[in-house]
């Protein structure tokens, strides 16, 4: 049987290999290090490149170089390391280089802790770096999805010529679940823009400097159009028991699974509760939430943070219903706790 018991981080790394990743550039940080370690074990055997960079800055710039050749390359880190990459991510976004950036996230701010968190949501979806750019952000909720989304990420990256981030709570990287190993990806788009020597063609240039204001503005419009088309094509969400829901919980990642368990329990008590789980954090799936707002009387954003995604939920609901918040930090709350919270809010708002 081809179900293998894997750690989330290893499943993600294996998924990247399945997706055709040929180089990993990274700097160790808990709780993401197993991704680098997995690559360090595999690439020497498979003939790819593993480089332990001297820093996250160096790593993201190695990704810039590697991606410029058209190869599928990636890096992985966590909170502080992602902050250090933010200049580089801004450069990569403007240079339109496809690549995979993984944030196995932990609690902040500062050095914070190494326990799971979702408090890098703003950084991931609003561009931690400078300037007008976005990157696609995928939030897996199981070890299987850690693998599957890594594969998807590289396809999306090439399709839209954009960096793609996978953001997962630290727990998801550390826990083990059985995964079905996917077949190797064999079809790739070609990349005439890639550098690699100008034999038989004009030189290619990878650049983000635009001193001429008009051209700089032109470039920003090019990106804006790309982001518009990504918003049109790529938002992904999962609806769970929302048909008849008075109260719609919005939660992503591993957190969303806990909420499901809680919903099943509170429904036994007669609470009409459902879940909308954003799978892409950017582009944010505003549409399903907006639709739910037609019927639902109340929304509850549940996050492992002090409240960040709630901005996007509010923007989607746009005043048609109250949007409440429940959050923890440095731990994934239990289904029992979430169940209690859902019932409390529902009662407060007079639902049941």
């Amino acid at each position: 049987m081809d179900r293998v018991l894997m750690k989330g981080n290893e499943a993600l790394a294996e998924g990247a290999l399945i997706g055709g990743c040929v180089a990993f550039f990274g700097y160790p940080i808990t709780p993401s290090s197993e991704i680098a370690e997995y690559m360090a074990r595999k690439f020497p055997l498979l003939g790819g490149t593993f480089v332990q960079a001297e820093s996250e800055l160096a790593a993201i710039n190695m990704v810039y170089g590697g991606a410029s050749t058209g190869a599928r390359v990636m890096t992985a880190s966590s909170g502080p390391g992602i902050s250090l990459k933010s200049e580089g991510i801004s450069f990569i976004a403007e240079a339109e280089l496809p690549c995979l950036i993984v944030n196995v996230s932990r609690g902040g701010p500062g050095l914070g802790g190494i326990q799971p968190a979702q408090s890098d949501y703003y950084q991931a979806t609003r561009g931690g770096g400078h300037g007008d750019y976005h990157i696609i952000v995928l939030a897996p909720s199981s070890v299987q999805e850690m693998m599957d989304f890594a594969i998807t990420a590289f396809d999306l990256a090439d399709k839209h010529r954009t960096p793609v981030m996978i953001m997962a709570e630290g727990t998801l990287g550390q826990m083990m679940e059985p995964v079905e190993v996917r077949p190797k990806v064999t079809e790739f788009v070609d990349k005439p823009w890639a550098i690699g020597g100008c034999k038989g063609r004009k030189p290619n240039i990878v650049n983000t400097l635009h001193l001429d204001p008009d051209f700089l503005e032109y470039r920003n419009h090019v990106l804006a159009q790309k982001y518009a088309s990504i918003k049109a094509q790529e938002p992904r969400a999962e609806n769970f028991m929302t048909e008849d829901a008075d109260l719609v919980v919005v939660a992503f990642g591993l957190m969303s699974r806990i909420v499901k368990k809680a919903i099943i329990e509170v429904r036994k008590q007669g609470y009409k509760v459902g879940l909308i789980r954003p799978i892409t954090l950017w582009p944010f799936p505003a549409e399903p939430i907006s639709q739910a707002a037609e019927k639902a009387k109340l929304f509850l954003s549940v996050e492992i943070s002090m409240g960040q995604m709630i901005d996007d939920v509010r923007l989607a609901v746009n005043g048609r219903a109250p949007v409440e918040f429940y959050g923890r930090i440095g731990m994934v709350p239990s289904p029992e706790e979430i169940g209690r919270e859902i019932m409390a809010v529902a009662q407060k708002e007079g639902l049941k």
Partner: protein
Amino acid sequence: MSSEQQVLFAGFGGQGVLSMGKFLTHAAMGVGKNVSWLPAYGAEMRGGTANCLVTISDGEIYSPLTENPATAIILNRPSLDRFESKIKPNGTLIMNTSLIDRPPVRKDLCIFQMPVNQIADEHGGSKIANMILLGACIQKMTLVTVEQTLSLFELIFAGKKPGVIDKNKEAFLFGVDYAARNW
């Protein structure tokens, strides 16, 4: 969902509680169950305490965690102090009396005790202490049978030297036997 069981393993960093959990998870997967293994990672700074939660189910596993595990396998005093109160009402508590110098407070629990360190010191050393205990646990738990587990040793220890595997099987069986005789 109905048939979902959650087992907590807790002890010192060095006591191999994480691998005990992994082993059980592996075994349960081997017999076709849905499983998840959730470690409290990092928290165990060197010398601190470690624990992991194993969920085994016939249905889809939504939540790999819980406030109240049905079964808790506790290898030291700090872990007992921390987790005793969390165990599900009428749940099961298996404890290592070598490193726990107090009896449990709760009366509703079904309790099994074993001086794991002493026993291990006598039979093959501390390295296999956790396999001995695991044998005893599996003998008592209904999740997977001893036979099933035995048949999965080669798979679970894939890559390990036969010597190592045999040594662990031995310890495992010693534990099974111990539980049969004393629990």
